[in-house]
C-alpha cells in the first residue's frame, strides 16, 4: 500500500493527458502542484499496472470539460455521469464513487428545505451538474433565488463564510471533508445523486476506459485492494460504503489503517487476509442464502441519493439489474402510487425518528404480475452520529403471501364454518377445535385443548360411536356416520360426523380431523314434514300433532293453531301446546297482539323482546313470551282463516331451513282447515239428508203399509162382491131358467162377463202394485231360453194359427227372473194378440248392440198402431184398441215399463199401423 504517486515515465508508452480540477477529495492539485485525490490514486495504481504514462493538466472544471469535448485531454477524473453527458463523452461503466449534492448554510442560519432557499443567495460552481440540477429543481417548484456563481466548490463555501451567499451547493464528498467547520452546517437538503466516473472524449479511448473498468471491477470486489485503500485514505472511516458490506469494509479499512500504523506488520496483515477470506466466504454463503430465500440487500446513501441493490433485488421487481437506475426515486417510481406513498412515508418517518422499519408492499411488475416484497431497513449513521443513509433487505414474499393467504383463507373457512371441526391426536386428545365446536360444547378453547375426547362426551356416545370409529380412522379409514349427540349448549343434536385420517409425510396417520355437520334441523324438518304429509284421518288429532311437532321442531315452549272468529276480532284456538302437552283451547282478542300483525303482514318473526313490543298483549306478557314466530293460514281464495304460531320465553334462533317450514305448515293447515270446514258442512248436509231420507222412508213405509193393506183389501174385498155378482147371476140363471127369457139370460151373461173383466182388472192392478213393491232379485237369466219357452207356450195355445218366430240364441242378462217373465209374457201376449188377424204371424226376438249397451227387441207383424198415440201406450188403463177389437186391461205395458224402469233400463216402441210393432228395451 503506497501513498506515493509517481508518473511512470520509465515505461515507453503513450502519454495520457488527464484533466485535474479542484474537487477535493476526489481530485485536486495540492500545494506542491501535484495531482491528488481518490480518483488520482486509483488511476495511478491502474496506470502503473498498465504502464501508462500520465500527464496532468490542471485547470478549472469549466475549462476541462470544454477540453474534453474538444479532445484536448484524453481523460477527465471525478466527473459525474449523466445520460446527457454520455451523449458527448465516453464514461467508464464502473463508478468510482457515488456522490450527491448537499446544500450548506452558515451555522447561524436555519434553512431546512428547498422552499427555505426562496429569495436566498445560493453559491453555485460554474458548469457543475449539481448546479444545473439545482437551478432546474428550484425552477420546477417556482422558488426564486439568487445565483452566486463561483469557479469551484471551495469558492461556494467561502462565499457563505464571507457572507456573500446564504447557501452553497457542494457534493457530499466535498462537504464531508471540507464543509465541516464552525461557520458552516448542512441544511439537510440533498439532491441529485450522481455516479462519479472517469470520462474520455467520444469514441477516442475505449481501450483506456475498458482497462479502467476491468481494474475497477476487480479492485471493488477485493476488500484489500488499492481501491479501498484510496477510499479509506481520502474519505476516511466516514466514507459511505458501497453495497451492504459497509461493516465489512469498515473492518477492512480499520484493519488496513491499523496495518499501516504498525508498519506492514506481516502477522497482522496475514490475519487481515485470513479474516477477509473468512468474511468473503461468509459473504458468499450469505449471498447463496439470499438467493435461496429470495432476499436481497440494499443500501441507500442519502448524500448521493444512490440506492444500491444486490443483484437479486431487481428480479423481485420484474427487472434486470441493469434496468434499475439505482436511485431512491427510481425505486419509488417502480411502485404503484398508493404503495409509493406508503413506502415514502414509512421511510421518511423512519429517517425522522432514526429507527428501523419493516414493511410489506405490493410490487407490480412491468408485465402486470402482482408480487409482494417485505422490505426492512434501518437508519445508519456516520461516526459523528449523523444520518448518512439506510441499510436493509428486501425479500420476495409473494409465495409465502400466497401460501399465507390460502392458509389464512383456510383458517377463516375453518373458523367460520358452522360445522364443528376438531383435530384429535393419536392419544385421542384435542389438538385444535374451531369456533363452532366451542359454541356447541359451550367450552373455552383452553378447557378443551389437550383433553381426551371422552372428557366431553356421554359414556354411551363414546362407547357406541366415537371410540370404535376413531380406532378405525387411525387405522386409515375415512369414517362417516350419523348419530344423536348431547351438547352442553344446544342439547340433543343429530350430527353427521366425518373422521378423516391426517397423515404425516411418511403416510402414517398421526391425527384425525373431525367434522360434525348438524343435521338436526333437517332431520326434524324431515320428520315433521313426513308427519305433515301423512296427515291424519281425524282433523283434531292432526291439528294437535302439528302443534306438538312444531314445538319440537322450533324447540319452544308454546305452539298454537287458531282460527279467526267470524267477527274477525279474536282467535279461537284449535290446538295449543305448552311444554310439549296439549292444553284446553281458548279464545283471545286479536287487538294489540303479534297475531293481529300476522293477519296483516304474512310471516312475523320476533326473535326477542316480544313482550316489550306488544305491551298491550296481556296474555303474551303474562306468559312471559320473549320470542314469537307466526304465519297466517290463508284459504285457497286468499281469505284469512287463522294462524299458526310458536313462541318462547327466551329468544329464538331459527335456521333458514326451519324458517320456511312454518309457511309450509300454514299452507298445509289451510288445506286441512278448508277440508275440515267443507267436511263439516257436508256432514251437516248429510245429516240433514239422512234425516230427510229417514223421514221420507218413514212416510214411504207408512204409505207402503197402507198400500199393502189397500192391495190386500182390494184383492179380498173388491173381488168378493164380484164373486157374489157372478155366483148369484149364475144361480139366478140356473134356478130361474123358466122365468127368464132369452134377453134376461143375455143380461145375466153380461153381468157375469163384466164381473169377470173387473176381476181381471183387479188382478192386473195388483200385479202392477206388486211389481212396484217387491225387491229386485237379480241373477243371470237366459233371456233367449225364456222368450223361446214363453212363445212356444203361446204357440201351443194358438195351435190353429200359423205362427213363425225367431229368437236370437244365447242372450243372457242380469235381472229379476220372475219380473222379467212378466215383461216377456206381456210382450209375447201382445205380439200374439195383435197378430191375430194376420195370415201368418211372424215374431222376432233379438238384440242390437251399441256403445251404450244391448238393446233387446220383440218385433211382430201385427196390427201396429198410430205412433201419434205412442205416449199413451205405457200408461195404466190406456188402450189404443177397442176391447171389441182386442181385449185387454191397459195395464200390461204399464207393468212392463215399471219393471224395466226398476231394472234401470228403458222401454220404447216403434210401430206402423197395420204393419206391426217393435218393442225395444234395455236392462
Amino acid at each position, binding site marked *: 500500500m503506497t501513498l506515493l504517486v509517481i508518473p511512470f515515465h520509465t515505461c515507453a508508452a503513450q502519454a495520457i493527458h488527464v484533466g485535474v480540477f479542484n474537487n477535493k477529495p476526489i481530485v485536486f492539485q495540492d500545494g506542491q502542484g501535484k495531482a491528488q485525490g481518490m480518483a488520482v490514486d486509483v488511476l495511478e495504481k491502474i496506470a502503473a499496472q498498465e504502464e501508462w504514462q500520465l500527464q496532468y493538466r490542471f485547470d478549472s472544471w469549466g475549462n476541462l470539460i470544454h477540453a474534453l469535448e474538444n479532445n484536448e485531454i484524453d481523460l477527465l477524473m471525478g466527473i459525474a455521469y449523466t445520460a446527457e453527458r454520455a451523449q458527448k463523452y465516453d464514461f467508464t461503466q464502473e463508478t468510482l464513487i457515488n456522490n450527491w449534492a448537499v446544500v450548506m448554510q452558515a451555522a447561524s442560519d436555519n434553512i431546512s428545505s428547498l422552499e427555505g432557499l426562496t429569495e436566498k443567495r445560493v453559491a453555485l460552481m460554474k458548469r457543475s451538474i449539481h448546479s444545473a440540477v439545482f437551478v432546474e429543481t428550484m425552477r420546477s417548484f417556482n422558488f426564486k433565488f439568487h445565483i452566486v456563481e463561483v469557479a469551484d466548490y471551495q469558492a461556494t463555501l467561502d462565499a457563505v463564510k464571507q457572507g456573500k451567499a446564504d447557501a452553497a451547493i457542494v457534493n457530499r464528498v466535498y462537504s464531508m471533508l471540507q464543509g465541516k467547520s464552525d461557520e458552516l452546517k448542512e441544511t439537510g437538503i440533498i439532491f441529485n445523486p450522481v455516479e462519479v466516473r472517469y470520462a474520455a472524449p467520444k469514441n477516442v479511448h475505449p481501450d483506456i476506459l475498458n482497462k479502467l473498468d476491468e481494474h475497477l471491477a476487480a479492485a471493488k470486489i477485493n476488500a484489500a485492494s488499492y481501491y479501498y485503500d484510496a477510499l479509506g485514505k481520502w474519505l476516511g472511516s466516514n466514507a459511505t460504503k458501497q453495497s451492504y458490506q459497509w461493516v465489512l469494509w469498515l473492518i477492512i479499512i480499520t484493519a488496513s489503517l491499523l496495518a499501516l500504523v504498525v508498519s506492514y506488520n506481516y502477522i497482522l496483515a496475514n490475519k487481515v487476509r485470513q479474516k477477509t477470506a473468512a468474511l468473503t466466504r461468509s459473504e458468499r454463503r450469505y449471498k447463496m442464502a439470499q438467493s435461496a430465500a429470495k432476499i436481497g440487500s440494499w443500501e441507500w446513501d442519502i448524500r448521493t441519493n444512490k440506492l444500491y441493490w444486490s443483484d437479486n433485488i431487481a428480479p423481485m421487481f420484474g427487472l434486470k439489474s441493469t434496468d434499475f437506475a439505482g436511485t431512491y426515486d427510481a425505486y419509488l417510481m417502480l411502485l404503484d402510487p398508493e404503495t409509493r406513498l406508503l413506502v415514502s412515508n414509512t421511510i421518511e418517518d423512519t429517517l425522522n425518528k432514526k429507527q428501523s422499519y419493516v414493511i410489506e408492499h405490493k410490487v407490480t411488475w412491468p408485465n402486470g404480475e402482482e408480487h409482494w416484497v417485505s422490505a426492512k431497513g434501518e437508519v445508519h449513521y456516520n461516526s459523528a452520529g449523523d444520518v448518512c443513509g439506510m441499510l436493509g433487505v428486501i425479500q420476495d414474499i409473494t409465495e409465502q403471501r400466497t401460501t399465507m393467504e390460502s392458509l389464512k383463507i383456510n383458517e377463516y373457512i375453518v373458523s367460520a364454518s358452522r360445522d364443528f371441526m376438531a383435530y384429535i391426536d393419536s392419544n385421542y386428545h384435542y389438538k385444535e377445535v374451531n369456533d363452532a365446536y366451542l359454541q356447541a360444547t359451550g367450552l373455552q378453547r383452553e378447557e378443551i385443548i389437550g383433553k381426551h375426547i371422552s372428557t366431553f362426551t356421554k359414556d354411551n356416545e363414546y362407547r357406541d360411536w366415537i371410540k370404535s370409529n376413531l380406532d378405525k380412522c387411525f387405522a386409515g379409514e375415512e369414517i362417516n356416520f350419523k348419530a344423536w349427540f348431547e351438547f352442553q349448549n344446544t342439547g340433543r343434536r343429530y350430527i353427521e360426523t366425518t373422521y378423516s385420517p391426517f397423515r404425516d409425510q411418511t403416510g402414517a396417520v398421526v391425527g384425525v380431523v373431525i367434522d360434525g355437520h348438524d343435521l338436526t334441523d333437517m332431520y326434524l324438518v324431515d320428520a315433521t314434514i313426513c308427519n305433515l304429509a301423512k296427515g291424519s284421518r281425524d282433523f283434531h288429532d292432526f291439528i294437535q300433532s302439528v302443534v306438538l311437532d312444531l314445538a319440537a321442531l322450533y324447540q319452544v315452549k308454546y305452539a298454537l293453531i287458531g282460527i279467526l272468529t267470524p267477527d274477525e276480532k279474536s282467535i279461537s284456538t284449535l290446538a295449543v301446546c305448552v311444554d310439549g302437552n296439549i292444553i284446553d283451547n281458548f279464545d283471545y282478542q286479536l287487538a294489540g297482539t303479534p297475531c293481529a300483525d300476522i293477519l296483516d303482514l304474512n310471516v312475523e318473526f320476533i326473535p326477542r323482546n316480544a313482550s316489550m313490543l306488544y305491551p298491550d298483549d296481556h296474555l303474551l306478557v303474562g306468559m312471559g313470551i320473549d320470542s314469537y314466530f307466526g304465519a297466517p293460514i290463508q284459504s285457497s281464495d286468499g281469505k284469512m282463516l287463522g294462524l299458526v304460531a310458536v313462541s318462547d320465553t327466551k329468544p329464538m334462533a331459527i335456521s333458514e331451513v326451519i324458517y320456511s317450514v312454518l309457511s309450509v305448515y300454514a299452507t298445509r293447515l289451510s288445506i286441512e282447515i278448508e277440508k275440515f270446514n267443507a267436511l263439516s258442512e257436508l256432514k251437516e248436509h248429510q245429516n240433514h239428508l239422512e234425516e230427510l231420507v229417514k223421514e221420507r222412508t218413514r212416510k214411504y213405509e207408512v204409505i207402503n203399509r197402507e198400500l199393502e193393506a189397500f192391495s*190386500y183389501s182390494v184383492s*179380498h174385498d173388491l*173381488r168378493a162382491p164380484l*164373486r157374489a155378482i157372478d155366483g148369484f147371476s149364475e144361480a139366478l140363471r140356473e134356478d130361474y131358467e123358466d122365468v127368464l127369457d132369452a134377453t134376461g139370460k143375455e143380461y145375466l151373461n153380461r153381468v157375469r162377463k163384466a164381473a169377470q173383466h173387473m176381476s181381471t182388472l183387479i188382478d192386473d192392478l195388483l200385479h202392477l202394485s206388486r211389481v212396484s213393491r217387491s225387491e229386485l232379485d237379480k241373477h243371470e237369466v237366459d233371456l233367449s231360453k225364456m222368450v223361446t219357452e214363453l212363445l212356444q207356450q203361446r204357440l201351443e195355445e194358438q195351435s190353429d194359427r200359423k205362427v213363425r218366430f225367431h229368437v236370437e240364441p244365447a242372450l243372457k242378462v242380469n235381472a229379476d227372473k220372475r219380473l222379467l217373465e212378466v215383461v216377456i209374457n206381456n210382450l209375447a201376449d201382445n205380439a200374439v194378440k195383435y197378430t191375430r188377424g194376420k195370415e201368418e204371424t211372424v215374431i222376432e226376438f233379438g238384440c242390437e248392440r251399441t256403445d251404450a249397451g244391448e238393446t233387446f227387441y220383440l218385433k211382430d207383424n201385427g196390427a201396429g198402431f198410430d205412433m201419434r198415440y205412442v205416449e199413451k201406450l205405457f200408461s195404466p188403463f190406456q188402450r189404443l184398441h177397442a176391447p171389441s177389437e182386442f181385449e185387454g186391461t191397459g195395464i200390461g205395458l204399464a207393468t212392463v215399463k215399471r219393471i224395466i224402469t226398476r231394472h234401470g233400463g228403458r222401454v220404447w216402441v216403434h210401430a206402423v199401423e197395420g204393419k206391426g210393432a217393435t218393442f225395444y228395451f234395455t236392462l
Partner: protein
Amino acid sequence: MGNHIVLVDDNADDEMLTIRALKKNDVSAELIVLRDGGEALDYFYGTGKYEGRALQPSPALILLDLKLPKINGLELLEKLRSHTYTRLVPVVILTTSNEEQDIVSSYRLGANSYIRKPVDFNEFTETVRKITEYWLSLNFTVSEQEK
C-alpha cells in the same frame, strides 16, 4: 174323525155360494159355518158360546178364509195346529188373496192346501168339487184312535 166340514168365512155371500157349490157337487157332509176367528176359536176350544161343546169328533175338513174379523185366518190356523183335536185336521185355505206372503205364511203354519176363490161361479163350483173329492174321498186322514 167326524164327517162334517167347518167353513170359517165372514162373508155371507161366499157362504151361500159355497153351500150351493157343495150342493151342486152332491156333498152330503154337514157344513158348520163360523163367522169370525173369535167364534171359530170358541168353537174349537169349547169356550164362549160353545162352552161345553163336545170337541170330538173333529171335522173332516176345515175351509178357512184368511181375512176374518177379530182373529184372522193365519192366527186361527196357528191355534188349530197347536190344539190337540185339530192338530191333524186338514185345513184348506180358501181365500181371495193370492199374495205370496199369505201363501208362504199359510203353508208355514201348517195349511194343507191353499186355494184362491175364482170369481167365475162355474169355476168356483168346480174348485169346490175338486176340494171335497180330494180331501173327503181320495185323501186318507189320521184316524181318531191314532191321534
